[in-house]
């Protein structure tokens, strides 16, 4: 008995070792791809395989990063864009959920409003940019509005759909215990749709970045979107690519944070 116990443990350890080796290989290739990509880029730029004026090079971008980081202007731009994105994301998501709750509350309202929602959903929201800027002024309010409006309608539709999908017998259970409509929402509809809301958070993070960057293209004097459009105008493509990399990094960080939040919230 003791012997087989030891043997089993041995087998398990072999299995764990195999997993570790596999994981190392995956890391190895991930880092390799990263290094190879940037090395080829640098090389191609130096050897003039690609036009260095248009495609810049990692070393130039790095130098720009050092310069911008030390004079503090980089943090200002990042701050502005992050604030606008987070605000747009939160407002868009919450307004969407609120609207979905209103639709659930009144079936008649939801039937009346349905075709308008379909049209609004189909419309490319960034096309509303000029109108929003005229209405709300050329400032960060407009940009936040862009970040929010791009995700409101889709959140509403997805969450409302989840509200409707719940088995009506759960409502029957609550009603038989004397629950009001409000209690039914709180005890059944809302918690049952919680996973959908969380997954719509993940979608909305990405959408809000789109809205905010386009908004900054249109009006702003600050932010990462502004840096891109400014770099484009003065033909400084190092600046354009630099901003792009910063956006990629921060969008990925935000996505990871939302994913962490999801894991924490959906335990049961």
């Amino acid at each position, binding site marked *: 008995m003791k012997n087989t116990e030891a043997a089993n443990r041995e087998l398990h350890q072999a299995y764990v070792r195999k997993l570790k080796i596999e994981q190392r290989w995956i890391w190895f290739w991930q880092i390799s791809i990263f290094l190879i990509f940037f090395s080829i880029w640098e090389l191609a730029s130096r050897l003039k395989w690609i036009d260095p004026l248009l495609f810049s090079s990692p070393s130039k971008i790095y130098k720009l990063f050092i310069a911008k980081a030390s004079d503090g202007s980089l943090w200002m731009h990042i701050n502005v864009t992050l604030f606008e994105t987070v605000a747009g994301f939160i407002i868009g998501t919450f307004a969407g959920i609120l609207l979905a709750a209103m639709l659930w509350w009144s079936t008649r309202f939801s039937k009346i409003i349905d075709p308008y929602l379909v049209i609004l959903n189909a419309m490319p929201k960034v096309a509303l940019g000029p109108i929003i800027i005229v209405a709300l002024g050329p400032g960060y309010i407009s940009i936040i509005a862009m970040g929010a409006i791009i995700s409101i309608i889709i959140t509403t539709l997805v969450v409302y759909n989840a509200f409707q999908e719940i*088995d009506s*017998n*759960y409502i*029957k*259970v*609550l*009603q*038989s*215990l*004397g*629950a009001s409509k409000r*209690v039914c929402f709180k*005890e*059944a509809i809302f*918690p*049952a749709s*919680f996973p959908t809301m969380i997954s719509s958070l993940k979608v909305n993070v990405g959408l809000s970045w789109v809205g905010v960057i386009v908004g900054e293209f249109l009006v702003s004097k600050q932010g990462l979107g502004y840096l891109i459009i400014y770099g484009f105008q003065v033909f400084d493509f190092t600046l354009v690519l630099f901003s792009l990399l910063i956006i990629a990094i921060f969008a990925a960080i935000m996505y990871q944070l939302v994913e962490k939040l999801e894991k924490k919230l959906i335990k*049961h």
Partner: protein
Amino acid sequence: MPLLSVNQVSHHYYSKKDYTKALENISFTLEQGEFISILGPSGCGKTTLLSIVAGLIKPTMGEIILGEDSASEPGNKAHMGYMLQQDYLFPWKTIKENIMLGPKINKTLDNSIKEQADQMLEEVGLQGIGDSYPDELSGGMRQRAALARTLITEPKLLLLDEPFSALDFQTKLRLEDFVSQLLKQYNKAALLVTHDISEAIVMSDRIILLKPRPGEIKQIFRMPPELRKISPFQARQHPSFQAIFDEVWKEMSALEKY
């Protein structure tokens, strides 16, 4: 005045194209402390009838009279405990939270209710699993938890939609005895839907046999008092059990031809 009067209730389900007659002209009364079983083939409107009595569906015609008032008044719902055909435990709540849902909704949640919930768990044989989630339980355990959720509100009238159908035979017999004893002790009334003829016989004062399409009362059987005095378990072995079983069986088999 009876606890519950069902007066000429008919119910139709409507769709755009057509309508289904689920119930047709159902009338009966239920006295304080009485136990009635509703027996009938699948689709004859048993669940519909129970939902109407619970006030969750408004019948197309007829009315439900409860004591003095009508079932449509929300205040009366608290006096009824409705156990649906499936357990419908909320998966994101623990078993104990599920059981205390009624008191929570009625804002009577306090420490004594929590103790009562523990006691209730013990009585349905689920002690020690109050902190588990429904998906960690077997089908029979879930059904017992749903029974506990219904009983904790101390309803005057219990509406049970096949509460014992997913249970193994031993648990079923034990719970039949438990429910029967509880109802007798507190002189509560119950309306039980079941497919199981012997269960209907050993639990009830009267059995209402429904015939399908549309659901109409085919016959009402009154159980003899000697069976009512003893527990369901003992009633199954009583000499007069078999004769009643054969009688109900004959009538029910005749319905299959519909």
